[in-house]
């Protein structure tokens, strides 16, 4: 069976969930071979093997952290040359898409970004995408070269499928371009203790209706009662009430949780672009005409300052 390269997104050896989802999808197309780079690359092997990686190619070098994007492209290209895979899958983060694009160009291949599903087809993998703010679903495939496909978080279930996961050192020669853009400093984001926005099963978001940074405590309390991540509309972010990292929408994060709860959010097209593929959508808004109600499975027309705290109390008491 043909091999499929899976680019591993990890933080110091801890594999992030979207990579494990990729392994599930990769198994539909071939035998997953993982590529893990940078500090802690070797520590990823156990988790990757447990989820189906037959091999884990690793390479540690300071360049991966010290320079932007290109060293990773060099390494992935080396892996493609070593393995001759049927496809290359990369998690759809901002960086993942940039790595994938440059790799595709070097390979003379086509690239598909932000796939939400993947199946094998007669002429190679077929990717499902959700476009125009999720108003359309398209199916596409790469018609030239080795398909390079980036896949969004929450596109597949994480499924254990133990495999050998044999670690092999990848040999990488960095290109002249590798050291072009220097990372002069890096400030890691402080953990909030809540789930990662793009990976969370439940997202609770607040918008302009929350009306102040201090009031976001109400949104956070609901999120914590449900074990959810906190999101925000751009209006709330632009007002300085919540960090941009939590913005949901076209220019923020795109989320696809089991449950999305929007409070004080009108549902503008750019916001919908980032949440419309959520499985169940719930909204609380005092304006019965708000477009968000066109999307909901359940909506409450009311003041969020009454409804949200009551909901939080009810969740807590039901959970005991």
């Amino acid at each position, binding site marked *: 069976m043909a091999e499929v390269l899976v680019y591993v997104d990890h933080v110091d050896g801890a594999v992030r969930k979207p990579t494990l989802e990729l392994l599930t999808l990769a198994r539909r197309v071939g035998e997953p071979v993982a590529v893990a780079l940078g500090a802690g690359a070797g520590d990823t092997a156990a988790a990757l093997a447990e989820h189906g990686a037959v091999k884990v190619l690793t390479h540690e070098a300071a360049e991966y952290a010290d320079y*932007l994007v290109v060293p990773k492209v060099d390494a992935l290209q080396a892996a493609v040359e070593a393995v001759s895979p049927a496809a290359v899958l990369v998690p759809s*983060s901002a960086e993942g898409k*940039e790595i994938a694009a440059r790799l595709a160009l070097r390979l003379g291949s*086509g*690239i598909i970004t932000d796939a939400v599903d993947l199946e094998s087809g007669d002429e190679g993998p077929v990717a499902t995408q959700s476009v125009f703010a999720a108003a359309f679903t*398209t199916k596409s495939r790469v*018609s030239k070269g080795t398909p390079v496909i980036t896949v969004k978080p929450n596109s597949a279930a994480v499924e254990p499928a133990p495999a050998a996961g044999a670690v092999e050192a990848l040999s990488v020669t960095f290109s002249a371009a590798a050291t072009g853009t220097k*990372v002069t400093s890096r400030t890691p984001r402080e953990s909030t203790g809540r789930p990662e926005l793009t990976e969370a099963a439940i997202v609770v978001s607040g918008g302009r209706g929350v009306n102040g940074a201090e009031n976001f405590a109400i949104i956070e309390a609901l999120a914590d009662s449900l074990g959810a991540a906190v999101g925000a509309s751009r209006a709330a972010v632009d007002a300085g009430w919540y960090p941009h990292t939590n913005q949901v929408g076209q220019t923020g994060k795109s989320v696809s949780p089991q449950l999305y709860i929007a409070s004080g959010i009108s549902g503008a*097209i750019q916001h919908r672009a980032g949440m419309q593929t959520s499985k169940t959508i719930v909204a609380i808004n005092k304006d019965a005409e708000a477009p968000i109600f066109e999307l909901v499975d359940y909506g*409450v027309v009311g003041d969020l300052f009454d409804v949200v705290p009551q909901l939080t109390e009810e969740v807590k008491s039901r959970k005991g």
Partner: protein
Amino acid sequence: MSLRIVVTVKYVPDATGDRHFADDLTVDRDDVDGLLSELDEYAVEQALQISENSDDDVEVTVLTVGPEDAKDALRKALSMGADKAIHVEDDDLHGTDAIGTSLVLAKAVEKAGYDLVVSGMASTDGTMGVVPALLAERLGVPQVTLLSEVSVEGGTVKGRRDGDSATEQLQASLPAVVSVTDQSGEARYPSFKGIMAAKKKPVESWDLSDLDIDEDEVGLENAYTVVESAAERPARTAGTIVKDEGEGGKQLAEFLAGQKFI
């Protein structure tokens, strides 16, 4: 010293319009009004700010690859304050994908002459966010992308990139390709004076032969990807909507419990 900045701007269908696909599964551009992608306004803005903050002699050129109407996008950028414009237009470009578009942009940028390319973070129609990286790869210059803050001084570009897990400060030597996010600062509105001045600014038109690009390198037929089908997402089935009469939160909890979320 002089600094030549080329800003890549895309003409896109209005996101608030009823966007859909044409029969050949390319984006239908006939039924929905087009405009300068809002996310490229931020690129124009940053280029103008770099120009205004510089002691050098700076020239800002806006460049688009697109149909006849794409001139509207150039006109808007010129009225914001860019100095001149280049429109690459050719019938053979219809249906060109990101890989092909980056080729056309790279050739055009080289022909125009540049020290710095400034792009938007993503187009509002395709939303791939890959063209700046592809452009840097093709031009063989550093990519300094997704910046929420950017500055140029003495042949060096610096900027802040707010990534998924960390905020990074980046630095590269010119020439380079930069892309900026919508966190980089509100774009200015064209003034009346700017709109009048734009009418007199030069707009050059280039076709594929001007750029030494073969027709079999671009266009729908030669794209690196094929869209096999496009289906309108079924409308979500109408949900339950209740008015809060004092029990809204409890009713919502009941719904969530029924769905096994609690």
